[in-house]
Every structure is written in structure tokens, then in C-alpha cells.
């Protein structure tokens, strides 16, 4: 019994390790209150833990898709009216979202990917070249964090957050336009 419990906890732990931050970002896009984000995050993974046997063997991308769709579903209802959250949670427990997106969703995703494939590869490579803090501030801004929220999340002043965003954008542009120059400049930093 202990082994089974440990095995389940290990699989849950891995799921959280891989996708926990993505789900938190998804929730934070729609819900500003950190306490609510935290509650909703626990709910999403509690739902995931109920389907762990089916979810754990799936590819990371499928796991992520399911978790993000579940989080979005839960958050949308939470934002609409607080007391529908429990109902939504119960509904999602009884009738979970399918692991694979619908054909329509899938077609939209593939179209978007095809249109921007080249640009996407270059941007992803440029982002990957940045320092973690620069990447963090860009992603936080992109998912809707304003200056004060970025400052709070990164435990820095608002002025420092603005400066960090500006520098990160500059570094990204450099990495995108001329990756070699960017890499040399990064190496030259003390």
C-alpha cells in the first residue's frame, strides 16, 4: 500500500514539476488575486490526480494541453461568479475534458503553427538564449502582468521591473537579429 501511494505521489510530483508553472501562468492570466490562483492551481492538479493513471503515460504536450484547458475552464467560471467554481469543479470531475482537443481546436492550432513556423523557431531560439530573469520578465508581461505585478512577482521595485523589461526586450532583439553578437556580448559580461 505504501509503495502504491509512493508511486502515485511520484507521478503526481513529476506532473507538477513539469507543468506546475505553466498551469500557474495560465491561471494568473485570468485571475489577479494570488490566493485564488493558488486555490485554482490546487484544484486543477487535484482533478489531474484523479485521472493520473490515464494522464501520466501521455506525452508532455498532451498533458499540458489538458491541464491548460482544464485550468482555463475552471478560471473562466471562477471569474464569472465565485460560487459557480464548485459546480464547475464537480462537473469537471464527473465529466472531464477529453485528453485530445476537439478536431476544430486542433485544426486551428495546426494552422497557426504552420503560418508562423519559421518565425516561431527563430523567436524560440532567441528566447532560449536569454538569461532566465530576462525570459521571466518577458513571459510575465506577455501573459498580462502589469508593472506592479511583475515587481511583486520578482520581488523588485516597479522601477527595476520596468528597467528589466526594457533590457530583456533589447536582449531579445539582439538575440533574434544577430545571435552570434548576442552570445558574445553575454559571454563578455562579468
Amino acid at each position: 500500500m505504501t509503495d502504491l501511494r509512493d508511486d502515485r505521489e511520484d507521478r503526481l510530483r513529476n506532473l507538477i514539476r513539469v507543468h506546475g508553472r505553466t498551469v500557474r501562468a495560465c491561471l494568473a492570466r485570468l485571475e489577479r488575486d494570488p490566493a485564488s490562483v493558488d486555490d485554482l492551481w490546487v484544484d486543477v492538479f487535484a482533478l489531474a490526480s484523479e485521472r493520473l493513471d490515464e494522464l501520466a503515460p501521455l506525452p508532455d504536450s498532451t498533458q499540458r494541453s489538458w491541464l491548460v484547458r482544464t485550468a482555463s475552464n475552471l478560471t473562466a467560471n471562477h471569474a464569472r461568479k465565485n460560487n459557480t467554481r464548485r459546480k464547475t469543479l464537480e462537473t469537471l470531475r464527473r465529466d472531464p475534458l477529453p485528453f485530445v482537443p476537439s478536431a476544430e481546436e486542433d485544426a486551428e492550432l495546426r494552422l497557426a503553427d504552420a503560418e508562423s513556423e519559421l518565425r516561431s523557431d527563430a523567436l524560440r531560439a532567441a528566447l532560449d538564449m536569454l538569461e532566465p530573469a530576462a525570459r521571466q520578465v518577458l513571459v510575465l508581461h506577455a501573459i498580462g502582468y502589469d508593472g506592479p505585478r511583475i515587481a511583486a512577482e520578482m520581488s523588485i521595485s516597479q522601477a527595476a521591473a520596468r528597467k528589466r523589461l526594457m533590457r530583456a526586450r533589447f536582449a531579445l532583439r539582439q538575440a533574434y537579429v544577430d545571435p552570434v553578437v548576442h552570445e558574445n556580448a553575454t559571454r563578455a559580461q562579468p
Partner: protein
Amino acid sequence: MSDDQTPNELADLVDVWIRDRPDAWAAAFPEPTEAELDADVDRVVVRARSLADALNARRRRRRSIGAVVVGTIVIVGGSVGVAALIRSGQPIQPAQGIACRAAEDPRSDAIVIPANADPIAACAEQWANGTLGPTSDVPPLTVCIAVTGVVEVYPGDSEVCGRIGLVNADAELTPDNLAVLALNDRLVNEVNAAACAAAVDVLASAKRIVDESGLDGWTIAIRGDSRDADCAKVALDQPTKTITVIKFP
């Protein structure tokens, strides 16, 4: 995209690109430490368990006495859940009160009494009063740590905890847990059991009490929906070292 894009155009493009790609979002937050992962797993396990138990909850007869005001608010508020720690003999919610169980079963009737440093004596008193069963004989009692991290006292020998999947509690609380108990007592007596006060005043009182407790690393904040409350109380969550000011009722 081309080299002659303005910085603003590129910035906008990056925002849209990131927004459309959940696989890039993880960078928004630092990687969790192993301890943070432990805590996250524990919280999820407890939440999943509470969801599964929810349907049965109404059917179970639960009697409760005492005035574990903080614990009550935690449950009512719902924003700060309990966390599981099924690997340790130390409670992670020592301030949550003690459940004196009527039988060797985690789902048996329980009387919840205020937290104190001698759970066996406290529950023995309940048995002696006849509130836990048809007899006033006090059976052998053993202190276990429940999956929710709270202290529970079961009738039975020292093996009872293991038989029902729990962990024997350590003989004594650690100094940190004792300090949290003292903190909880003060919050109950000086804030929750006192007359209503505005959220900002409760926040100030809670900060003062924490400062005086000598405990480090605690966060005290007003919950988002309670900032303008004329009457607020506090909820203590030890795993996250958080005290939340919540509108009341």
C-alpha cells in the same frame, strides 16, 4: 519578421507569440525547489482526498465542541487549505485542534477540542465525561498524525496508527510547533475571539503578534475580497507560514 522591425513591433510580436504558446509560459516563474514540490504534492493530495470525501461528508455524523476559531475560519474561508505530511510524526497543523476519535477508524465520530500540548490527557477527559461513547471508561489512547497533518487521538494500542494508515505522533512537539501553538492561541484570544475589527486593524494586530512571537518567515496579508471588511478574522496556515485576514462572517 525582418531585421528592420522597430523595437516596439518586435515587442508586440513577442507578446503575442508567447501568449499563444503555453509551452513557453513556465518561464514566468522560477523552478520550484524540492521542498516546494513536496508541499505542492501534499496540498494536492489533501485536496483530492477532500473532493473524494465530499460526497460522504454529509452522511457522517460529526460532533464538534470547543472554540477552534482559527480552524473554523480556515475551513469556511477555503483559500488556505491544509497540507498533508504523512511521512512525519510532527503535526504540520498543530494549531488546528485535536480530533478525539471514537473508534479505530479515521472516519469515526470525532470531538474536536482546542489544540494543546497533551492530546492524550485532553481526549481522556472526553472519554471520562462519556462524550465519546456509552462508557466513561478511558481506553488506551494513541496519538496519530492524520493525512491532513493534524493531531488525532485514537482508542487503541501504539500500533493503531499504522493499522489505519497513519503515523504515530512524536512524543513531544518541536520548539517550532510549540511556538506556532502559542501564536495560534494569541491570535484566537486577541483577534478572533475579540470584538469585530476592520481588516486593516486586524492586519496590524496580527503583524504585531507575529513580531512578538519571534517566529520568522511568516507572511501576513488581507485576502483580496476582504480589504474593505468592517469585521475580519485571521486564518493561520502553518505549511505556507501564512496568516490571512478574512472578512467575517
